[in-house]
């Protein structure tokens, strides 16, 4: 019995944002997919055809699935990047949701440095970005140590939370050089993740976007 691989399409804006981790999972697993990038001016026309009026949306044999973490987890499960046991998978989920909470805290700073609005960058850096980074990356550094300082946040193999954190560090460093200098184990994880040969292949050829 030959089961054919489903056809995959991922619709998102042309940036990395909430779509990049899923794109990376396809590349890491050598799974073909349509990397559908919707320019901002085409989004209003496309919006109503999406389940939640948002992107990213994953299409599996034409069936839509919204919400970036639901998509990333689904693909990670399919391709083997979700941890090796149910408890490990739950820890990947816990770190991902902690990242989501952190991102909500740092968003006002990022909103301004990305150029989406006006604001006092220095004040936001001190009052918003630095406390959020210290709290979250403190958790990650301890987690990396408790996990055996092995270059992964959970277990002993690459998971989608390694990808998410590594991608975000890339964003942070554009606006806050040395953002994670106080978190050497986290930096080791980022280094190990971004030098994975299959991932590096994608990182070297993907479209370059600021976020």
């Amino acid at each position, binding site marked *: 019995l030959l089961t054919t691989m489903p056809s995959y399409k991922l619709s998102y804006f042309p940036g990395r944002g909430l779509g990049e981790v899923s794109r990376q999972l396809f590349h890491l697993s050598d799974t073909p997919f349509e990397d559908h990038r919707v320019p901002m001016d085409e989004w209003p026309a496309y919006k109503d055809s999406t389940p*939640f*009026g948002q992107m990213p949306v994953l299409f599996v044999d034409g069936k839509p*699935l919204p*919400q970036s973490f639901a998509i990333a987890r689904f693909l990670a499960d399919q391709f083997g990047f979700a941890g090796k046991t149910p*408890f490990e998978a739950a820890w990947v989920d*816990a770190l991902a949701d*902690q990242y989501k909470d952190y991102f909500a805290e740092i968003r006002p700073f990022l909103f301004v440095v990305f150029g989406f609005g006006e604001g006092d960058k220095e004040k936001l850096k001190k009052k918003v970005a630095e406390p959020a980074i210290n709290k979250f990356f403190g958790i990650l550094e301890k987690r990396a140590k408790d996990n055996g300082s092995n270059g992964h946040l959970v277990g002993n193999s690459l998971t989608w939370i390694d990808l998410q954190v590594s991608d975000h560090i890339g964003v942070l460093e554009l606006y806050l050089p040395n953002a994670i200098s106080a978190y050497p184990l986290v930096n080791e994880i980022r280094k190990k993740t971004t030098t994975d040969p299959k991932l590096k292949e994608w990182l070297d050829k993907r479209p370059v976007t600021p976020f």
Partner: protein
Amino acid sequence: HSPLYNLLYSAWLSLVPSFSAMPSYKLTYFPVRARAEVARQLFYLAGVPFEDVRVPHADWPALKPKTPFGQMPLLEVDGKPLPQSYAINRYLAKEFGFAGKSPFEAAWVDAIADQFKDYNIELRPLFLVLMGFAQGDKDQLLKDVGIPARDKFFGILEKLAKDNGNNGHFVGSSLTWADLLIADHVKTVSIHLPSFLDGFPTVLDTVKKIESTPKLKEWIEKRPDTKF
């Protein structure tokens, strides 16, 4: 007994399926429903015993540094900690069979839960005032924050429930933790904003059906009564 008897008995024992001991579970949270209620319901629905630890607010600061993320709820499985309410909910739901019947269905459960999380973030300023945690103009917040957030999210839920055949579930044809999440929220809303969801009859019908699940009904009737 003869050696032959002992041999046959040992052989028989090795053929009997070994019952692996169920893990011990402990769930630690504040004495409210909020972010721990779905996990509590999953244990009860599955008939799985667990230690339902409710920490008074005054006791929390001493406990906080002992938790992985300085937050609750916290699940402990044979003493091993797991933080973050949705990670806990999903882990238990998968163990006990309340996470959808296929990987794609499980992903849709996740998507609804994450959309609910986004909605809660939007609703937060109104929620804080309603619960008495902050000062503010309730009516202004309702107009500026509550109604837009509600219309966006419950519009999605209304359509999901209809497209799913008004079968008493938001996705698939069996109880999932997304059903429990929404039903508990609707309960809280009904306490504080009685007619807030009247414009979403299929959602309300779905929640009624969810709440009539026998074991869940039992739990709801006997659990500590809290306003959120």
